[in-house]
């Protein structure tokens, strides 16, 4: 027999239980804001803001507001959002930011699992940057690969009809091209992408590593690193312009379109801009994979992803939006609007029709297989971010290129890394 107390408790619980979904339904947000770094591919941003956002509002009544930050400014914006615990509900992450902002990001493992199941599974190498303590903290939509962008006409002039397979072969081609007045221009300054884009792969391809998997053993002081540094010095002195030591990310694009350089490391944005604004240069522009070194061929991961902030008034609503956005019906169209600028980490898109439009973008898809995150094989944590922000690796190579001794530049880098990783 039910006691009076049990009856009242049961009734209250049932009422509360029934009321909760209602309350949730009543509190469904009227709008949500998504902040992302402005894309180099304008149609990609436009498709999101003008087409997808409208479709979602029509289906759910929730207005999606798109906030664009300037290129290179997203980390500062994300820092402000996380520190003030206010602002957009959904934010773009890149590099290893999910690890940096771990505590500010909602676990989206459930959504990632569903998307993976629907679209052929995720590429394994992206897990290292978006999964933190076994929880997905961001959902990657694509990689911005850093490959070699080169002038096919000038390479042919010196008898190179196919992009060189190894660093040594590229050096040989570069010597000939510089003599012809077409030097290379690989960034060695304090930019945010085009420097690390080739310097980490170069180090790895010679067998060098910054730090071990344990994040405590600094490995930079090695014979392999010395070989990479020596090669880089030779590569710089014999193939490049002096100015690359001070370049930031805009300079190589300007130099390429100014017909000042014959080869650089960049995303596919050079060809994309060329096709629209410099058709004559675009005709003779192609992409090559990062050359291989004695220990293999490597590329750099920069997984652009969406993350849900913990301060979002309604995290399930934000996740629901991402679930909808990553559904093939939407994602497929959205990726296509970017002309294959973003290489998706989903195997279901390995043979997506977007790759057939311009075959010159295919190396960016191929490069995913050999892509690793910055500071690999070290852990993707705050120390890795500090190493990247302090340009430890870039400056090690840059100092060697301007003439400092190999052992000195490696010793300086080792000392900085030991301080950063708190290693002995």
């Amino acid at each position, binding site marked *: 027999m039910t006691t009076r107390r049990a009856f009242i408790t049961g009734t209250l619980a049932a009422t509360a239980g029934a009321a909760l979904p209602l309350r949730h339904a009543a509190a469904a947000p009227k709008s949500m804001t998504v902040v992302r770094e402005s894309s180099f591919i304008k149609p990609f941003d436009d498709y999101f803001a003008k087409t997808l956002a409208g479709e979602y509002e029509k289906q759910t009544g929730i207005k999606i507001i798109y906030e664009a930050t300037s290129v290179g400014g997203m980390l500062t914006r994300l820092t402000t959002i996380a520190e003030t615990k206010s602002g957009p509900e959904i934010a773009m992450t890149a590099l290893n930011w999910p690890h940096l*902002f771990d505590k500010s990001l909602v676990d989206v493992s459930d959504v990632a699992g569903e998307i993976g199941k629907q679209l052929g599974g995720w590429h394994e190498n992206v897990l290292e940057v978006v999964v933190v303590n076994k929880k997905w903290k961001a959902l990657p939509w694509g990689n911005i690969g850093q490959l070699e962008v080169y002038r096919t006409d000038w390479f042919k002039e010196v008898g190179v009809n196919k992009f060189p397979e190894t660093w040594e072969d590229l050096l040989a081609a570069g010597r000939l091209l510089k003599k012809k007045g077409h030097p290379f221009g690989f960034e060695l300054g304090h930019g945010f992408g085009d420097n690390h884009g080739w310097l980490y792969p170069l180090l790895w391809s010679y067998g060098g590593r910054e730090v071990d998997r344990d994040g405590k053993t600094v490995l930079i002081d090695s014979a392999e690193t010395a070989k990479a540094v020596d090669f880089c010095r030779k590569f710089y002195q014999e193939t490049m312009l002096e100015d690359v030591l001070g370049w930031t990310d805009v300079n190589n694009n300007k130099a390429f379109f100014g017909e000042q350089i014959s080869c650089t490391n960049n995303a596919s944005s050079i060809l994309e801009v060329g096709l629209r604004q410099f058709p004559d240069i675009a005709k003779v522009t192609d992409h090559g994979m990062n050359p291989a070194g004695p220990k293999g061929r490597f590329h750099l991961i920069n997984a652009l992803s969406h993350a849900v902030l913990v301060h979002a008034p309604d995290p399930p609503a934000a996740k629901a939006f991402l679930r909808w956005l990553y559904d093939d019906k939407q994602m497929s169209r959205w990726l296509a609007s970017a002309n294959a600028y973003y290489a998706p980490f989903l195997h279901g898109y390995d043979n997506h029709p977007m790759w057939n439009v311009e075959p010159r973008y295919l190396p960016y898809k191929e490069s995913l297989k050999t892509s690793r995150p910055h500071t690999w094989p070290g852990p993707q944590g705050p120390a890795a971010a500090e190493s990247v922000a302090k340009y430890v690796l870039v400056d090690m190579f840059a100092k060697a290129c301007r003439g400092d001794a190999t052992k000195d530049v490696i010793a300086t880098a080792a000392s900085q890394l030991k301080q950063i990783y708190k290693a002995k």
Partner: protein
Amino acid sequence: MAVGPASVARPAPLTGRTASRRSVLERESVFSWMMLAPGVLFLLAFVAYPFFYGIFLSLQDRRVASAGTFVGLANFVAQAHDAVFWQVTRNTFVYTIAATVLKMVGGLAMALVINQQFRGRNLARAFLLLPFIVPTVLSTVAWMWILDPTFSVINWTLLHSGLIAQNFSWLGNKTLAMVSIIMVNTWRGLPFYGITLLAGLQTISPDLYEAAAIDGASTVQRFWYITLPVLKPVLIIVTMFSVIFTFSDFQLPYILTHGGPANATHLFATYAFDIGMSAGVLGSGAAVALAMLPALAALIVALTLYLRRE
């Protein structure tokens, strides 16, 4: 002239409360604080709070979006063992001293010239202010083009006039990169010196120069014994402000070189930003930013004491 009865001109008597309010407001100590209050509140909110929060952060091991733990002076000790920090310190002093001296000499020359009577003087004064009026970000982007190896108008001029055989790498060479940011800072800061010193020059009575000329003083002597002593207080104040702005400069080096090549142009502000915002190590970034404080505080105290003595 007819004057009405006193009772007509006399204001109506005040009620007790209004009278006491007015008498309180008329007290100088109250009124002056009322006038100061908006400024003080502004300074408290936007200067004092960030400053003390910066000190608080610098004493913590504080990563972005995480709780901090008190570590005392550990961040400062770590900086003392960081070779880049010392390079940044050297860079900041070289940048500040060189740019300040150039601005002081150039600004004084500019003020002396535009203080003369000549046709189109007002137009010249307006144009000279342009570098100071144009937003730094915008003018620095223009300088990026001016210093670009391919498109540099400086290189083009030097090359075509036969003065150089090959282009200078203004931003790629470590010495030239420092020279470049000093040059751009000087260009931007010169009008501040020029206009302020011009205001000082205009307070000097022409009688002094006339008397000196009658006594046979040369132009150099008049400058040395009249112009410079009268201008000295203005010069000191302008220099103090200029040193503070130059020492903590961020926009210009960040846009032009981002501290490169190989940290050759990294200053306190750019290095602190990279550590605090790009690496997310807020405690350490705050410690680097605070490293500017002793030098600036010493300068301000020294100049203030000097001014008081004068």
